[in-house]
């Protein structure tokens, strides 16, 4: 299949893997963070880690937008959905994220009208078809999905739709990366920068990482060869003692981002002073809310949102796992209080989260490591 198979060529992968191995200094361990959940998915789906030498560890970053939504926000969304005449619409991957009283799926089973959509524009369609209902879109995601939410709000405003609003949970990636960089026990050597986010914000926002923190960044695409090449580029910088921002995904990511998309976000949304992230706590200026001008589309103002805060359980050490300080099994609640069926922290929520992956496949991974060291 065109545009797919050429980025999954095993021969090219072997060649890249050999070059990556050549760049490893003997005795040195490398921890590279892939920021984006999409990268984690690719790495897992294609078994990409099989190509990496044992010295390189990939740390799965905070870039899974559904996993970082704190429990309290999920609870708020459920309260919204339970209001009379409300139809809540949501992306599919949000459906299984647990609040303190189950997930959207569970709420749906209790009779709440929650519908899965592929695009916020589908929510608009539902709003038009159900003029006697109040349709709320559960807006989640980084700068990747924020423009489509913004465009939807603009279109709703244009059409004068009165029964549509958004529950805005959009977050921004840079403050989260900064929070990780500022942590005193940071153990990361470099970053695979988020590809889709960068199509919107461009590569410039990452310059501080290279300049102020001395860590190389390579904005990476989502096919497996994209990621291997990006790892190679990171390793090359590390070998040469450099730290700059490079763009591997140049076929999609313009250095300066997408001005039209940024403008739409800027027109409809503004930064919140604080926002809570599951596992990372409160991070300043890390999320977006609807601008006052578009208040009639802001579900947080139209409805009475409980604003319940459900603190991450103290024993949850997601933050440390995210930062690569702890291995999943070293977390205090791993495998007892926190399991894939009853996940507490972000790393367990997504099947690709570091903890969920370890819970399901940890024994196998160990076995493989053992076999590899024996041979």
């Amino acid at each position, binding site marked *: 299949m065109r545009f797919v198979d050429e980025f999954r060529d095993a021969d090219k992968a072997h060649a890249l893997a050999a070059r990556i191995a050549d760049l490893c200094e003997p005795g040195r361990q490398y921890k590279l963070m892939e920021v984006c959940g999409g990268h984690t998915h690719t790495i897992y789906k294609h078994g990409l880690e099989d190509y990496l030498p044992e010295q390189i560890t990939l740390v799965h970053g905070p870039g899974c937008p559904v996993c970082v939504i704190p429990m309290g926000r999920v609870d708020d969304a459920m309260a919204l959905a339970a209001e009379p005449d409300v139809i809540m619409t949501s992306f599919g991957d949000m459906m299984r994220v647990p609040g303190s009283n189950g997930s959207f799926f569970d709420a749906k089973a209790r009779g709440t009208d929650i519908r899965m959509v*592929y695009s916020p524009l589908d929510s608009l369609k539902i709003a038009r078809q159900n003029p006697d209902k109040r349709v709320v879109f559960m807006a989640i995601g980084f700068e990747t999905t924020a423009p489509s939410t913004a465009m939807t709000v603009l279109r709703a405003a244009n059409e004068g739709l009165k029964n549509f609003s958004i529950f805005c949970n959009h977050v921004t990636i840079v403050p989260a990366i900064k929070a990780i960089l500022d942590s005193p026990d940071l153990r990361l050597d470099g970053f695979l920068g988020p590809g889709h986010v960068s199509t919107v914000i461009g590569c410039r926002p990452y310059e501080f990482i290279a300049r102020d923190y001395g860590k190389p960044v390579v904005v990476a695409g989502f096919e497996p060869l994209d990621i291997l090449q990006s790892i190679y580029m990171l390793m090359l910088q590390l070998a040469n003692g450099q730290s700059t921002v490079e763009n591997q995904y140049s076929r999609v990511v313009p250095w300066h981002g997408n001005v039209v998309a940024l403008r739409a976000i800027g027109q409809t949304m503004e930064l919140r002073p604080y926002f809570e992230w599951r596992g990372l706590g409160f991070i300043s200026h890390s999320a977006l809310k609807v601008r006052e001008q578009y208040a009639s589309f802001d579900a947080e103002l139209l409805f009475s949102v409980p604003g319940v805060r459900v603190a991450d359980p103290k024993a949850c050490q997601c933050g440390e796992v995210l930062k690569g300080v702890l291995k999943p099994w070293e977390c205090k609640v791993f*495998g007892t209080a926190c399991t894939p069926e009853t996940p507490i922290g972000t790393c367990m929520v997504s099947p690709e989260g570091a903890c969920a992956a370890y819970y399901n496949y940890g024994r196998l991974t160990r076995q493989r490591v053992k076999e590899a060291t024996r041979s």
Partner: protein
Amino acid sequence: MTTGHLDQPATKDAPALARGSAGWVADALREHDEHERREQEAQDTGHVHRGSPQPLPGTVREELVLERIDRARRARPRVKEERITMSHGAGGKATQTLIEAIFLDAFRNPLLEPLEDAARLQINGSRLALTTDSYVVRPLFFPGGDIGDLAVNGTVNDLAMSGAVPLYLSSGFILEEGFPVADLSRIVASMRAAAQAAGVQIVTGDTKVVERGKADGCYINTAGVGLIEHETDLGVAHARPGDAIIVSGPIGDHGITIMLARGELDIEADVQSDTAPLGGLVAGLLAQTTGVRALRDATRGGVATILNEIATAADVGVMVSEDDIPVRDEVRGASELLGIDPMYVACEGRLVAVVDSAHAASALAALRAHPLGEQAAVIGHVTDGPRGIVQLKTAFGGTRIVDLLVGDPLPRIC
């Protein structure tokens, strides 16, 4: 209740915090503490670390954690949800738990226990297969078929997978008030045609009408009886290391067709459902070779779910190769766009066969000799281990684990 943006860690929300601390989190943490305490006690009373507790070496601690997970996995399945969710019907982990914890627990008997597609009964020297299935597909009519031929083929296939020749079917209709009679006639006509093609007769039935809104147009249940003439005792538990795993054709056609036919995605592709009766294909296969250990039709949950059932039931490993799994370009393309994996997408006219490797070539030839098996392929093998785990050699050259999904495959945004 507060209205407006909750932007900061408000200090006034202390009671809210207490209220918000999820019950299950508290329970889970209690469970965890209990665990810790017991492990500590065991350590304290054990001969290794009497006196001041010393931290265990990393590898030992990791092993303890892994053992704890294994214990939890072996524990009796329990339905934790208070209500049925859509996941319980998706064919994955949630369905499995529901079946084992609720149905098997209540009805337990040796005929039910193998949880095969059909029960095998011995009556006066004859071996019969008995099965039932309900059909609730939406839309009722889709490219390549409709609920009518699906209801016949699905049950015929469940019989065929137990090695039986399908003979008689029942059909029960649940109709919603207001359902067009013309549609019903169309459905019944296609059932008649499908029954004829499969060589079965529909010999008994039932009709119920429910009020508008109590059903989605038309639901059909069919049950079927077949005669097992071969000596072979088929079942996924019979899989042995070294066995070949064969699929009878391209996977995922039906599921993708249905997703696109719902018209919610604005994606068009030239695919149609693969719904077909597999009795003939199976008869040909069993006539050619004695090496068949198990047959399953890859419906809900797709091929991935069948492979997991093999690995679990036979306590073996399974290794398949992505390059060898036939998937149509249209299905692959749609799956890439939707962010789902064709391995989990339903088929309605494809089977997975576990075959003694010595007979793999003749089994493949027998399947390919039939029009429904022309694109049959060996996709992998049963392995010694790791037990209970299905692995996929990716086209990219890596390996990954193909686990059971909890519920339906969900589209991803990230």
